[in-house]
């Protein structure tokens, strides 16, 4: 079963990475980031189970806390850009270009 769990985790990471690269809506990019972080956290839990060491489960607590902070800052950036540009399309996020 270890290989199947790792494949599910790899699928989540790959789907999240593809979503970050492919989507135009910044809100969905943030959601894809969450999925990616969750895939990595799931691998920690899988290894905690199969190695018989609870440290992986403790690490997941830290991963969850950092993911929550990242979402808060990302949403703040989205709100700021929406106030300036009136859109959350990432192609409009080019303030630093000129």
């Amino acid at each position, binding site marked *: 079963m270890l290989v199947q769990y790792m494949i599910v985790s790899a699928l*989540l990471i790959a789907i999240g990475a593809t979503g970050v690269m492919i989507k135009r*809506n910044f*809100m*969905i990019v943030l959601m894809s980031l969450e999925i990616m972080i969750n895939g990595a956290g799931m691998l920690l*839990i899988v290894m905690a189970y199969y190695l*018989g060491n*609870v440290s992986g*489960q*403790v690490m997941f607590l830290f991963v969850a806390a950092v993911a929550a902070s990242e979402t808060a800052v990302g949403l703040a950036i989205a709100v700021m850009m929406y106030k300036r540009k009136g859109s959350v*399309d990432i192609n409009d996020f080019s303030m630093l270009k000129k």
Partner: protein
Amino acid sequence: MEAIVFYILAIITVGGGLGVVISQNPFRAALWMVLTFVGIAGLFVMLHAQFNAMLQLIVYAGAIAIMIALTMMVMDRRNLNAIGRFNPQPLWAAMFGAGILADLAVLALKFKIDLSNAGKNLAIDGSNTKMIGDVLFKHYLFPFEITAIILLVALLGAVVLTKKDINQ
């Protein structure tokens, strides 16, 4: 029996992830994301990580999904839905994602560890929460405090970024 439950949960999880990437409406994407998180919580229960399963439901499926949905609620719905689905060159991104998947899958298939300890040392008196608390406050106390500081800094950063006169 265990394999059947695993495959059902895996299909829910991966299907939810695909739904997030494929859907154009961000509100539907948020609901797909909640489905993914619930599926992952089910997988955590199968891995004897009951505390983390509940944490997943409360923090991810509860707090983060609601936070994203509330942020989208204050924006213009027609404006959000009018954004195109994919970037102008989606094929390259999809190929890169497939490459990441192939890389990780090869690693997973070649990975060999000693499985004699599988499922042991995960609970004290049948309680996973007690074991996590024991390890967290005996061995990981300093990282725990650092996590508190990270949360505080993120809170301040969010407040500063959304202040009104940041544009001047």
